[in-house]
């Protein structure tokens, strides 16, 4: 579990939500950062190979959908980046990747 802006978030919630969105690939990484007094959630998500149409607007629509679906679920607006398939470390089983860069 992680606490962001006083909200408890379970990485599995994010994983479940992401895996239900068509176009999302196998792996993702959650980065927690602090900017001034604000906690930020930054998620890097692999795109599924078959989803790529060659059009930027489809990628941008996927990115926006990920942001919207996560915001309605975890009440935090994440920054979402799309990355190439197989470019992130593999997520195996329960080991969801969370990298906390906030100063303790």
């Amino acid at each position: 579990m992680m606490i962001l802006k006083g909200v408890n978030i379970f990485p599995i919630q994010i994983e479940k939500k992401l895996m239900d969105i068509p176009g999302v690939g196998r792996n993702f990484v959650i980065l927690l950062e602090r900017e001034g007094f604000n906690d930020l959630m930054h998620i890097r998500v692999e795109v599924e190979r078959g989803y790529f149409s060659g059009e930027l607007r489809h990628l941008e629509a996927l990115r926006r959908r990920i942001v919207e679906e996560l915001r309605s679920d975890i009440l935090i607006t994440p920054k979402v980046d799309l990355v190439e398939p197989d470019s992130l470390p593999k997520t195996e089983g329960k080991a969801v990747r969370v990298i906390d860069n906030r100063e303790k």
Partner: protein
Amino acid sequence: MIAHQLSIFAENKPGKLAAVTSVLAKAKVSIRATTIATADTFGVINLIVDDPEAAQAALTKAGMMVKLRPVLAVLIDDKPGGLDRLTQLLHKEGINVNNAYGFVLESREKAVFVVDVDLMEKAEKLVEKNGFRTLDTDALSTIEPFHYMKY
């Protein structure tokens, strides 16, 4: 005739374009035209090349996400109003252009304008009916762009 454009997904960071051109150089693929569309942290590199299928195979083998997209490559006059004639025609028929770019074939004579539209077949028929020539992949790969000797 329909031509093919290579569209490659790329993160917006140093070295991504170099990785693409390096693969194409090794595969001996020649690039005719290119544009990059970016949305913050990622984008799409669009290329017109002489051998799209070989390029797609080489880039896919290198792990990249690549798509061949049908486009219209329309031959226009390289003089004032040359492009306007084409765009006015597309406008009049309500054809929306998603992406477009051009390159000169023969200075002050001929240029190629590449358009990516929603209604590809309708647009193709329309421009050909109105006296434009469209080039397919074979025609694009055999033409010799830019006659430097004229300068």
